[in-house]
């Protein structure tokens, strides 16, 4: 079970997308996992053959549990009895997992006949109330649909001590099983996860904060001219320029790009910018756009659009969740001028952008109104000092003054 968030302790296998015997390669999506934050597709880092699945669908296991065995190319298949035991909690997860694995739920009843059961909404309700297994009910409604009367008839003949089951089929979404949590449970779990990560951040990270006003006249004028040339579907949002400027600054001042792990700063060569995306039902996720410093604005725009769509649909990839080396949060759309961010551990910096608004702006002895935005940096003082942070913000400003080079 991969670690898919700083405070993830366990995850549930929603669905295996490969079966034993399948050839698999690096980058394949092998399974869908439900964490407390989202449904996440697990990517493979090995190429070979899926030998066996150890943790079945529906089961919740601690981070570090072996989920399946993959035989890499050239390796000989071990005899069945020589299979390694299930390994739990490698060194990476310091405390032993404390979340008890819930006793296995009775698996959802699947209909005896292939295809979906046709059940009226009232019949479903009555079946739940009476604890009737719908797969055993003969439907007499239109198109052989099961009606409430059918359920009541079945309840009369059912064995009385049968435990009540909720025989509703797990709804399918585009071929993927739906997550195991209800929206309310997910919301509560996400709140808990955010609370844990943010409390840890404030407890452990000595934040320092810097802020500066950035004149965006050039950037906005360039963007407007650029967008005029494009069809509506290919237009750029200004946030794409901000993300690119952050990525370029991160490359120049690398002290802010990486992780604080085990008492030391580990600089990251790659720049994966996490983008904080708020969810409609509350909560937020900050998945990464990989190698953002090397991408053009169009590609970043495409990535961003795709990411927002998938975050809201709750389908993210494992690498996106864990790889961010620095995070950007923009609250300007909500009318905020200044963001005082909290770093997402183990990252060491968070860049905040406020709204763009017209301000009086003095330059070269003249006063005019300019579109101006407040940019802030929350940084980990263990990893960097204010001087480096100041250079970093100045670099963002500089890049935004040359929009055509972004």
């Amino acid at each position: 079970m991969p670690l898919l968030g700083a405070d993830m302790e366990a995850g549930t296998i929603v669905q295996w997308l490969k079966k034993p015997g399948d050839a698999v390669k690096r980058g394949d999506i092998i399974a869908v996992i439900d964490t407390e934050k989202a449904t996440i597709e697990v990517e493979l880092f090995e190429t070979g053959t899926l030998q066996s699945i150890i943790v079945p669908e529906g089961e919740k296991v601690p981070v570090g549990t072996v989920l399946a065995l993959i035989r890499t190319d050239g390796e000989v298949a071990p005899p069945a009895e020589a299979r390694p035991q299930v390994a739990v909690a490698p060194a990476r997860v310091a405390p032993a997992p404390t979340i008890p694995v819930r006793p296995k739920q009775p698996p959802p009843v699947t209909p005896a006949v292939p295809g979906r059961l046709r059940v009226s909404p009232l019949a479903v309700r009555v079946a739940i109330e009476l604890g009737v297994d719908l797969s055993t009910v003969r439907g007499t409604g239109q198109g052989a649909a099961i009606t409430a009367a059918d359920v009541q008839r079945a309840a009369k003949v059912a064995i009385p001590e049968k435990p009540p089951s909720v025989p509703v089929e797990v709804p399918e979404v585009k071929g993927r099983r739906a997550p195991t949590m209800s929206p309310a449970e997910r919301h509560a779990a996400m709140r808990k996860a955010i609370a844990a990560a943010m409390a840890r951040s404030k407890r452990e990270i000595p934040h320092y904060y810097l802020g500066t006003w950035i004149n965006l006249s050039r950037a906005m004028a360039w963007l407007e001219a650029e967008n005029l040339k494009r069809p509506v579907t290919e237009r750029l949002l200004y946030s794409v320029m901000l993300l690119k400027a952050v990525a370029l600054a991160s490359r120049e001042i690398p002290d802010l790009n990486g992780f604080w792990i085990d008492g030391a700063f580990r600089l990251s060569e790659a720049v994966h910018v996490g983008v904080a995306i708020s969810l409609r039902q509350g909560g937020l996720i900050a998945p990464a756009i990989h190698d953002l410093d090397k991408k053009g604005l169009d590609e970043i725009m495409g990535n961003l659009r795709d990411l927002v769509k998938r975050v809201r649909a709750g389908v993210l990839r494992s690498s996106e969740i864990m790889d961010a080396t620095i995070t950007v949060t923009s609250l300007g759309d909500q009318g905020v001028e200044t963001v005082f961010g909290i770093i997402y551990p183990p990252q060491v910096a968070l860049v905040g952008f406020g709204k763009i608004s017209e301000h009086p702006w003095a330059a070269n002895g003249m006063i005019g109104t300019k579109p101006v935005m407040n940019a802030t940096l929350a940084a980990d003082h263990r990893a960097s000092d204010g001087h480096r942070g100041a250079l970093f913000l100045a670099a963002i400003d500089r890049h935004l003054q040359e929009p055509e080079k972004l």
Partner: protein
Amino acid sequence: MAGTKTVRITYREAIRQAIREALQRDPRVFLMGEDVGRYGGCFAVSKGLLDEFGPERIRDTPLSESAFVGAGIGAALGGMRPIVEIMTVNFSLLALDQIMNNAATILHMSGGQFNIPLVIRTTTGAGRQVAAQHSHSLEGWYAHIPGLKILTPATLEDGRGMLWTALQDPDPVLIFEHGGLYNVEGELASDAGAVEIEKAMVRKSGTDVSLITYGGTLGKTLRAAEELAGMGVSAEVLDLRTLRPLDAEAIVDSVTRTHRAVIIDEGWRSGSISAEISARIMENAFYELDSPVARICAAEVPMPYAKHLEDAALPQVATIVETAREMVGERG
């Protein structure tokens, strides 16, 4: 109402009584429209009223719906309580601009200063072999428009009682009288008077299926419910009475009792009031449903002239019975 004296009366006479009473009670009330005076109304509803009330209050108008509906709006703004008769609903399309862009909006556009206490009466529906240009059921269209109230009296009581209540309303009210109802005869309490216009009414209680309808198809639906009773199916008949505002609560209550709904509507199916009713059921009573909602509407064709084709194009008792019977299915 046991013990109350009743009189034998037609729907046409019930409406005439309502108009007469309004003219007697309120000097601001007057009737205008095409042929309402000397000719006595295209459907003879206003026959005799010209002699009784004179040309000031029973006014024949030129054949210009837009003009005389506009005049009605003006009169209402000026403090009168006009009853404007539009001969049939298809002719009302000529006045649609006045109805929708003026009557329905002036209160809003004036910042709440000017109400339009206008009542429009018109004939709707098919079944009389008057073919594709005189058989529309467009009350569902009008029910789409905020700012209007849409009444569809289906009974003698409502024919007699809705007009006065409509006249008391400070805002425009459209009354759709189904052409097939004018000759319907029955017993009406001799002291019948104003009725409320906000609520749907259960015309027959039942437990197996809700038959939801209004206006011209209420009679057919009640006959279907009787036939269904003979088959052991207990059908509830809900008469909507008012299409805007729609009494969604009554619809949901009924479906919550019966768990099944068949909507009977003489309008075309696509984008119809029956679609709206079905959507309200889905929104508010989905988990009560034991079967998909069914609709029996007019065939989506211009109304045929030939009797057998017209019958085939309209909701009929047999179709209602068959649909409800099949929906209820095997009895447990």
